[in-house]
């Protein structure tokens, strides 16, 4: 799915990777076969561009407990994990605009160092309750 130019651009970005990252792919052939295959192919192509990235595929119908632990019930989906599970998820194939966010999420998960102002980090450290942020987008 990635052409040579895309691969080279991603490889350059991946020079910033500072530690291991696991991409957990959620696929279910019977629910959304084509999209799940596209998603899995894309993730494997991305993972092939860095030896720090590993891939695991889960089927929410079979690996039910683990999928529930990730909070994933829809497919296709991806969880991006670094030193811990930071709670970063992608629902749907991250093509177009979301593709650059997937690459960025891999890098920030590997470093554990968010590119945020000190003031923002201080405020977030004081959060007293959980916040789930959903970001809806389209490929173009």
């Amino acid at each position, binding site marked *: 799915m990635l052409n040579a130019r895309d691969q080279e651009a991603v490889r350059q970005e991946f020079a910033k990777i500072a530690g291991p990252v696991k991409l957990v792919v959620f696929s279910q052939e019977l629910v959304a076969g084509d999209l799940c295959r596209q998603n899995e192919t894309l993730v494997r192509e991305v993972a092939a561009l860095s030896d720090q990235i590993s891939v695991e595929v889960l089927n929410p119908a079979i690996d039910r407990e683990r999928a529930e632990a990730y909070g994933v019930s829809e497919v296709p989906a991806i969880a991006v994990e670094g030193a811990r599970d930071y709670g970063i998820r992608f*629902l*749907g194939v991250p093509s177009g605009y979301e593709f650059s966010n997937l690459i960025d999420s891999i890098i*920030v998960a590997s470093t554990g160092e968010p590119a*945020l102002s000190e003031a923002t980090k201080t405020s977030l450290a004081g959060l007293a309750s959980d916040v789930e*942020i959903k970001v809806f987008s389209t490929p173009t």
Partner: protein
Amino acid sequence: MRLAQHMAVASERVTAIAIEATEFPELSRSYRVMAVPKIVMNDRVEFEGALPEPQFLEAVLQAAGGQAPLAETK
């Protein structure tokens, strides 16, 4: 999604979910997604379009706290 995922790394309390709206039409309908990007925090604070970091943070703090949502859109 960029700010959201960086905030997720910064705080164990924050999770960031990117949703491909065209692949999940029912979910998008239930959140009344008319324009993208649309951001929904804790199902109570929502807005359309990108916000600078300080305003995005303000929305996160609203979603976390007991204040009435400010950025509600129709």
